[in-house]
């Protein structure tokens, strides 16, 4: 296993992941663990936990972590570059297309359909996060506090996360 293999494996994971970081976890599992045997299942579980509890996109975090386990710091960087390469190429191509056809009637009709769907997709993401994160009264209380900060106080999201982290340290321990 060399750096090129790491790069290509993660480029493949990036290319076939639709719908954000969580969607890539099963791909990493089947490709990196089962097919290549680069990680044990226990290491994979660690990786998921790390990716979830550290800042940044899950996919990037996972790639950096696995790459680091495989080949040190260089491995982490190479895996990360691999996982974002397909994104960059495809998004740039789509962005160029959208800007080229910006003023056409067809594209504006397409956009009118897509925009509400995007709002719906984000709502769905909120629901799925709520499902796993709100399991008991204390987490409802934190969610309520966060809602007041966000909707009433209009407080910066980063500050909301920090405050809720401290709140968590106080009421959950």
């Amino acid at each position, binding site marked *: 296993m060399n750096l090129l293999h790491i790069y290509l494996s993660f480029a493949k994971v990036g290319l076939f992941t639709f719908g954000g970081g969580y969607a890539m976890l099963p791909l990493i599992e089947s490709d990196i663990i089962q097919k290549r045997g680069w990680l044990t299942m226990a290491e994979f579980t660690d990786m998921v936990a790390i990716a979830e509890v550290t*800042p940044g996109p899950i996919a990037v975090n996972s790639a950096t972590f696995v790459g680091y386990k495989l080949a040190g710091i260089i491995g982490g960087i190479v895996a990360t570059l691999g996982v974002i390469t397909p994104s960059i190429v495809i998004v740039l191509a789509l962005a160029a297309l959208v800007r080229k056809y910006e003023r056409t009637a067809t594209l*504006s009709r397409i*956009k009118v359909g897509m925009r509400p769907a995007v709002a719906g*997709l984000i709502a769905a993401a909120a629901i799925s996060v709520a499902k796993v994160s709100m399991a008991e009264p204390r987490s409802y209380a934190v969610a309520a506090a966060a809602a007041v900060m966000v909707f009433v106080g209009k407080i910066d999201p980063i500050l909301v*996360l920090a405050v809720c982290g401290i709140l*968590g340290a106080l009421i959950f321990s």
Partner: protein
Amino acid sequence: MDSRQVSGMTCCEKETDNGDGGSKSASLWDMFWTFFRIGAFTIGGGYVMVPLIQKDVVDRKGWVTKDEFIDALAIAQTAPGPIAVNTSVYVGYALRGFAGAAASVAGCIIPSIIIILMIASVFDRISSLDVVQAIFSGIRPAVAVLIASAAIKLGKPVIRSAGELAIAAAAAIMVSLLHISPALVVVIAALAGLLTGIGGDSR
């Protein structure tokens, strides 16, 4: 829109490209730093980053309009790869072309790389600490609220009719109950818009 050079030339499409969309000027460093800050502080992945990106890029800096941001998200969710990376590439490209895309995406991923590399070595020791667990128990519900607020904020300007509300609801149901891929949902919604012309005469 672009009134810098009206003299002489008749409508030349190329000339108007630079000034469109209401995007304000952004320096590469500013773009890098904005995405770096977001990348460094958002725990929980791409969808968590969406409200923060929106707050900075749309509300605070005014680099892109809400509509443009929604287009960016539609593309970010249709294309493969991490949502946050895709969004940063699109926004960066819209603002400053390829250099802008490079600056934004670098800002988006560098905090992750640094933090993960630092944590990977000590992870086993800190993850089992009760305090760490407790902190994350507090952060997770807040994450759900932040994402919901992003959905509401982004939904408001684009959901103006019953048809559009139906599309939004259908998209949410398809993904959260039927577990259909978001990419497929975006494509279906695009087709629905194209075929039904739901928005009528709107832009």
